[in-house]
Each structure stands twice: as structure tokens, then as C-alpha cells.
């Protein structure tokens, strides 16, 4: 084609109420893999992708946070408002609006829809979730809806990729019309009550029939939101998750450990003794390998979280937790970011954008790192496996899983106490309310779960291959040079050993040994590095080859006392050892003040609690 140089790509934006399926549609149209989940407020920033049009010219498609109104109340809604009005920094106003509506909740979604249509931009409606509408016994007439709204309407099922071709065609038409006549046609603005009335009438006209079907989710909610049954069910579920993380992962983790051992053997056989062989066995296999063996546990943890998110249970958990959160001056709205932080504090801190109250949001950001993220799992896992016997208590409960659960609870309790204190001091303000839509339940789709798990596993492995690998290699070099003279231990002679001895002065009072102290330094990059560096340190420090190959777990069993090991666990409940978290906290709070505060208070807590743990365990004679 010899078309003249196109000034810029055409741009279309996905707008609509939260949880309408915008991101699902975005993924289906662009092949992207944005997070989708069944609760409102999943997407909190703009994301761009490319949509190939039938004529071969791509359109820039933008996924936006869901919004109930252009009168924004939370930071994520503000992103949508600004972008749609062409006020977003560095971004021109989209040419076409793709308005995504939930077919099973038209009356509500049509209110904001009118606000979008009033903008006068070319608009196409994706009448999404028609499958759910059907499940709820609704028969809809898309043409009648289109007639009433004055814009084309295309029925879609984003997650089954239905209606996509028609939707793309409609976008193409809207875009072409816009080019032909590029002046916007703003429509008369209605007031909210007027819009609401219109929405009711339009919905009535578009719904052909309503057959009474048993509403599956009301039945489920009777149990899951039951005042006395709901909370125990939630706690039992959380408990099962942590038991499963240990119990189910063991065979897979053992297999991975076997592979690492075999690799190490192979290297020993193939390569001549020397620096390079040591580098591979001590640095790469012992170090990075010791982290990678936690892949099965990470996958199990994420599988539970993803199922909770996809079914719609997450919003119910927020409902149940609201009372407790209110007790410390927060709301159930903070619960979802905090629960996301169990996976990783970074998306958790991002997710706070859906919290309207700034003080609430800041408090949630500050306590998010206290939620036990998956990066702590390798640290907890290896230390627990090394010092806590694998026995059953009370019949069927694994002691190791119980200790893990206790560490998670310690993080949660710590977070609650900190929130309570913060809300009375630095983030004092009016207690805020809790207003949240509870989405309909859905069966999780296996494909989405598999993709979600694969993404998380990939992120974990990529971290192992980059940041953890790099930190481990540097540490190995510092541990290997200068070479020890005869009769001297390598650790004592090495550069890292000297650093560790210096730092150890500060950490000896709380029971840390020199290797642990050393591990804390590279672990500033990411917590898992602590495990990799311990493994490398012990591998370098071992006198003979047999010992080098010993799993880190056995090394710890042999070398650490119980109080020391427990103090190390307590340290990691609090310590903010993650550069990315600090960076994202800086971005989300617009400055260094709050991340600095976060670092200071968390390190102080870590030190104090590790100390208390060590001293009391010692006093108890453990």
C-alpha cells in the first residue's frame, strides 16, 4: 500500500464498569495477557496493545481501569477519566470508545454507558457476558439496545472469544466514520437520576424475557457469607492452603532436588577440578538451584490464590474481613491488595489504587510488605524443613505446615497492629467505609488458570535466572577470593568473610551467625537470594566434596541452633528486603518520604522481633 505516512496510530479505548470483562476482551483482541479476575478493581493502570484491523492497519487498543462514573473517587478511576477526556499526560484522546457492558447487569452498567456516549466520540458497545445473562435466564435483544443507545451493539463472550470478528468490524466502521467527519458530536448531558431512569427503561426494552432460574450464587452466599459459618470457612481455607504448600509440594521438590544433585554429580565427573567447576557447583547449582526447588510450592500457593480470584470468593473474603479491618481503622477494601501481597507486594501495592481514601491507601501500602509474599517461601521453607521435625500434631496436622501458618499469621497480626498505630499517628484521619460490589460466582476456566500459573512460574524462574543468579555469582566471587592460605578457612580468608565479620557485630546479639548476616546483604535485592547465598556460602566453606553436595537443609540442620533458626524466620516476617517493593512504594506515594519510613520501621521491627524470638527461645532452653 502506498498510503501517505500516517501521522499516528488510531486509538481505541476499552471503558466500562469494573468487572465488565474489559481486560478479558483486551486479551482476546490483542493476544496480551493482562490480569483478569472476578472482582472489581483488577486493572489499575492503562495498558496498550495492538489490534489488527481487517484492512491490515493496526489500531492501538487501550485497556483501562473500570469506573462507575467520570466523577472519579479513586486513583484508578481518575486514570480512566483523564485518559478518556484527553487529559492524560503524553496521550491523545482515543478516537473510538469500546464500551464494555455486562449483559447480566445492564441496568447498572447503562448508567455509566450513557456518560461515555455523551462524550460524543464514536462508540461501539460490546455487550459482554451474554453467556452469564443466559445462565441467569435473561434473553436480550442487542438491536433494541443499539437502537435505544444510538450506537452499534455487538454481543460478545470475551472469555470464549465469541463475537470478536463482529466487534472488530464495528470498530472499523466507527473509526472510518470518524475519519470522514472528525468533529465530535457531544450529546445533551443528563443528570444522574435522569440517566438512572433512562438506564432502567433502556434495559427493560432490551430484555426480551426473564425466566426464573435458581440463582446459584445466592445459595452459595447463604453459606459463604453466613455470619457464623463464613469466617470459619475462610480461615479453614487459608489453613488448608499452607498445609498444602508443604504436603503436596514435597514429592516434586524432592524430585527437583534430585535433579540438582545429579547435575552437580555430572559436572564433577565431566569437568576437571578447578575454579570453573567450583563456580558451577557452588555458585550456580547450589545457589540458584536451592531457590528453584521451591517452584512447586510457589505454584501451589498461586493455584489457590488464582482460584479464589477467578471464582469471585475474593470479594467475599473481603466482606468477611471487613469487621476485623475496621477494628484497626481500615476497611475490607484493603483486604484484596493485602491478599494479593501474599503473592507479591508489588501488585498488592499497585492494587491499592482502587482504594478511594488517601490515608487508607497509604496505610495499606505501608503494611503490604508485612504480608508474607511468595519470595519468603524459599526462606521459610528451607529453614522450617531443616529445624522443624516433619511430624503430625493433633492427629493429622503437619507441624511444618503449622509453623508456616504461624509465620503467615505473625505477618498478618503484625500488619494489623502496625495499621492500628499508624491510623492513630502518621496516617490519622476519619475511618473510612467499605463499599464494594460483590461479583457473581463463576467457575474458574482451566485455561486461564493454566496461563496464570505459567506466568507466575515464569516470573519466578526468570528472577532465579537474573537477579538471584547475578547476586549469587557476585557473592561466590567475593567468597572465593582471596584464596585461603593453608590451615585457614576459606570463609575467614575471603573478602565476603571480612565484611560478614564486621556486620556480625550488630547481629550477634539477636543470635545470627556470620553466614546468616552475610546472606542478608545480597538479600536486599530480593529475599530468595538469602537462600541462594547461604547455599553458596556453605558450599564454598565445605572442606570436602561430599559436604559441598549436601542440601542446604542438611547444612542448616547441622550448623544452626533452634533459637538461631527461629530468629532468622522472625527477621524475615518483617524485614523489607526487596528493592522492587521499595521502588514501587516510591512511585505510588510520589516520593522517598514514605518508602524511607517503611524501610526504617520494618527493619526496626525485624531486629526487635528476631531478638525477642532468640532470647525467649534460648531462655526456654530450645
Amino acid at each position, binding site marked *: 500500500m502506498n498510503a501517505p505516512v500516517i501521522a499516528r496510530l488510531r486509538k481505541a479505548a476499552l471503558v466500562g464498569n469494573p468487572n465488565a470483562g474489559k481486560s478479558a476482551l483486551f486479551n482476546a483482541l490483542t493476544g496480551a495477557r493482562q490480569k483478569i479476575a472476578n472482582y472489581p478493581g483488577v486493572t489499575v493502570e492503562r495498558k496498550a496493545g495492538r489490534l489488527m484491523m481487517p484492512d491490515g492497519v493496526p489500531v492501538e487498543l487501550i485497556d483501562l481501569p473500570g469506573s*462507575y*462514573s467520570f*466523577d472519579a*473517587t479513586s486513583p484508578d478511576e481518575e486514570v480512566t477519566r483523564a485518559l478518556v477526556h484527553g487529559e492524560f499526560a503524553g496521550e491523545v484522546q482515543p478516537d473510538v470508545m469500546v464500551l464494555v457492558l455486562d449483559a*447480566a*447487569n445492564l*441496568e*447498572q452498567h447503562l*448508567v*455509566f454507558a450513557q456518560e461515555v456516549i455523551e462524550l460524543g466520540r464514536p462508540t461501539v458497545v460490546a455487550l459482554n457476558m451474554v453467556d452469564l445473562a443466559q445462565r*441467569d435466564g435473561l434473553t436480550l435483544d442487542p438491536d433494541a439496545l443499539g437502537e435505544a443507545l444510538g450506537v452499534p451493539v455487538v454481543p460478545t463472550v470475551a472469555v470464549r472469544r465469541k463475537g470478536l470478528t463482529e466487534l472488530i468490524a464495528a470498530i472499523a466502521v466507527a473509526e472510518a466514520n470518524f475519519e470522514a467527519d472528525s468533529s465530535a458530536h457531544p450529546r445533551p448531558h443528563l443528570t*444522574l*437520576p435522569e440517566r*438512572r431512569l433512562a438506564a432502567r427503561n433502556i434495559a427493560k426494552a432490551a430484555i426480551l424475557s426473564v425466566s426464573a432460574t435458581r440463582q446459584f450464587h*445466592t445459595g452459595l*452466599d447463604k453459606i459463604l*457469607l*453466613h*455470619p*457464623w459459618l*463464613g*469466617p470459619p470457612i475462610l480461615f479453614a481455607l487459608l489453613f488448608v492452603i499452607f498445609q498444602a504448600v508443604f504436603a503436596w509440594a514435597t514429592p516434586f521438590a524432592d524430585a527437583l532436588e534430585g535433579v540438582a544433585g545429579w547435575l552437580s554429580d555430572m559436572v564433577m565427573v565431566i569437568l576437571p577440578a578447578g575454579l570453573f567447576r567450583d563456580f558451577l557447583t557452588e555458585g550456580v547449582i547450589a545457589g540458584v538451584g536451592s531457590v528453584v526447588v521451591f517452584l512447586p510450592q510457589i505454584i501451589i500457593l498461586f493455584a489457590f490464590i488464582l482460584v479464589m480470584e477467578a471464582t469471585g470468593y475474593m*470479594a467475599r473474603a*473481603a*466482606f*468477611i474481613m*471487613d*469487621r476485623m479491618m*475496621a477494628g484497626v481503622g481500615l*476497611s*475490607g477494601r484493603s483486604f484484596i491488595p493485602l491478599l494479593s501481597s501474599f503473592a507479591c507486594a508489588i501488585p498488592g501495592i499497585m492494587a491499592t489504587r482502587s482504594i*478511594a*481514601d488517601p490515608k487508607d491507601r497509604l496505610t495499606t501500602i505501608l503494611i503490604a510488605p508485612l504480608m508474607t509474599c511468595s519470595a519468603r517461601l524459599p526462606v521459610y521453607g528451607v529453614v522450617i524443613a531443616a529445624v522443624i521435625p516433619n511430624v503430625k500434631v493433633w492427629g493429622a496436622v503437619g507441624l511444618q505446615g503449622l509453623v508456616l501458618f504461624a509465620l503467615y499469621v505473625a505477618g498478618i497480626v503484625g500488619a494489623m497492629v502496625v495499621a492500628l498505630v499508624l491510623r492513630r499517628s502518621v496516617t490519622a484521619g*476519619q475511618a*473510612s*467505609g*467499605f*463499599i*464494594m*460490589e*460483590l461479583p457473581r460466582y463463576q467457575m474458574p476456566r482451566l485455561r486461564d488458570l493454566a496461563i496464570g500459573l505459567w506466568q507466575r512460574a515464569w516470573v519466578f524462574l526468570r528472577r532465579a535466572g537474573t537477579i538471584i543468579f547475578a547476586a549469587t555469582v557476585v557473592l561466590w566471587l567475593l567468597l572465593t577470593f582471596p584464596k585461603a592460605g593453608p590451615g585457614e578457612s576459606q570463609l575467614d580468608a575471603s573478602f565476603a568473610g571480612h565484611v560478614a565479620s564486621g556486620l556480625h557485630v550488630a547481629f550477634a546479639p539477636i543470635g545470627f551467625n556470620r553466614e546468616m548476616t552475610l546472606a542478608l546483604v545480597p538479600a536486599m535485592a530480593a529475599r530468595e537470594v538469602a537462600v541462594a547465598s547461604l547455599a553458596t556460602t556453605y558450599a564454598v566453606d565445605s572442606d570436602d566434596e561430599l559436604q559441598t553436595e549436601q542440601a542446604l537443609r542438611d547444612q542448616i540442620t547441622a550448623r544452626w541452633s533452634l533459637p538461631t533458626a527461629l530468629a532468622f524466620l522472625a527477621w524475615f516476617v518483617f524485614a523489607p528486603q526487596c528493592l522492587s517493593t521499595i521502588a514501587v512504594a516510591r512511585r505510588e506515594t510520589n516520593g522517598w518520604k514514605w518508602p524511607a519510613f517503611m524501610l526504617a520501621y520494618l527493619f526496626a521491627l525485624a531486629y526487635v522481633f528476631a531478638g525477642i524470638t532468640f532470647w525467649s527461645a534460648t531462655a526456654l532452653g530450645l
Partner: protein
Amino acid sequence: MLWQRSGMKLEALERGAPARIISVDWSAIAPEEGKRLRALGIDRGTQITIAHRGIFGGKDPLAIVIGRMTIAIRRVHAAAMSVEPL
């Protein structure tokens, strides 16, 4: 009956009983939250049912049903709304 006309607080409404909001004291609700409630369709004239109330015998939060939607709110919001049972 007069007491019904003047309405009862939503807070006091029985679970599962349909009602209509006849007035909302917006001054008792934080402005941003009022905005959010209105955007969700909670306003004078809305038909409403309480589906769930509180946990462990407490009264917070509430899950209310409007049309085809379930929304969690707090008791302070419910206390600001007067309803008439239908």
C-alpha cells in the same frame, strides 16, 4: 400507618424483606463515599433488600441487593438511609 410512611432506618430492616429508599441523609456520609453509593445506584427511590448482615453476630458490614447486583456497605451508610417496606 404514619410510622411506616416516615420510614424506618435501613439498618433496622429485616433480612430478605424488600423495601424502597425514601430518603438518604447524605450529610451523615463522607462525600466521596456518597458519590460512590450514588454511582452504584443507591439513592432515593431505589428498591433494596438486605441479603446478609455482619459476621459473628455483629452488624457490620451489610450486603444489599439492588436489581441484579449485590453490594457490600457499612452500617453507618445504612443508618443514614430511611426505607419503607414494600
